[in-house]
């Protein structure tokens, strides 16, 4: 079975058994989510975001044996990232802090949006490689039709219709998975 198609729980179990490829897949699976929390929910600078990113995965590896629920690794990583971002903001003294959270408006709303985006990313991973690639390049990587056309060797005139068709497939896949989304906040 391909690592990319393993459930979170099975992937965590493989990581715990020392499977190096499984660990690489785990980092790859959650990397965008962690990065987005630090840069969008907490608006960290790139250097701070990088520190938090490395620390999140270092601690995840360290705590693999102590996770209570392997299937809940995504909300666990979300919470860990959130805590480390707050620590980073406190250490940098760049926020007026009161209570447990920095006074950044909209953190919860952004976390909710990123949880939903993660579910979409999971649905995206279930599509064909062509669809995955074209949607990711166009929307997430902000590539132009010309760049996509050259990279995937497809006529520029067909890209808009392929995107539309792939979005349709994504909607079907997403709606089929939607009930499984759990918030991390």
């Amino acid at each position: 079975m391909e690592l990319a198609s393993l459930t979170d729980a099975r992937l965590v179990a493989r990581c715990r058994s020392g499977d190096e490829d499984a660990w690489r897949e785990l980092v790859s699976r959650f990397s965008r989510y962690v990065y987005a929390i630090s840069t969008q929910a907490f608006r960290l600078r790139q250097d701070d975001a990088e520190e938090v990113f490395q620390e999140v995965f270092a601690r995840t590896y360290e705590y693999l044996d102590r996770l209570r629920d392997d299937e809940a690794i995504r909300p666990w990583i979300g919470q860990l990232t959130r805590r480390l971002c707050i620590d980073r903001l406190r250490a940098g003294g760049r926020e007026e802090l009161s209570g447990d959270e920095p006074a950044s408006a909209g953190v919860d709303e952004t976390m909710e949006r990123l949880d939903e985006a993660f579910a979409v990313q999971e649905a995206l991973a279930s599509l064909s490689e062509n669809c995955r690639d074209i949607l990711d390049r166009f929307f997430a990587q902000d590539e132009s039709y010309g760049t996509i056309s050259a990279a995937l060797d497809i006529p520029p005139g067909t890209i808009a219709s392929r995107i539309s068709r792939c979005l349709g497939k994504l909607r079907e896949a997403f709606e089929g998975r939607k009930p499984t989304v759990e918030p991390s906040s």
Partner: protein
Amino acid sequence: MNAYHEERLAELIRSLPPVPEAWVRAAQELPFARQLLDDIVARAEADLEFRRALIADLEQALLAEGYEPDALPLEDLRRRLAD
């Protein structure tokens, strides 16, 4: 597909842009690099000549012993050798 779904899905895909590749690679290699680091430090504690070589020229000493310095957190290693 109606316009709302299309726009919403597109917005959500945009919410998770790619991470710099070097960050991902470093996180993927970190646990194994730490294990290697532990091995090197243990070896340096047992072999004073190796330890002296590491302190004199870390990268050269690692290369001479077949390690790949680029794959290791060298600052961590320097700090641990200095302890």
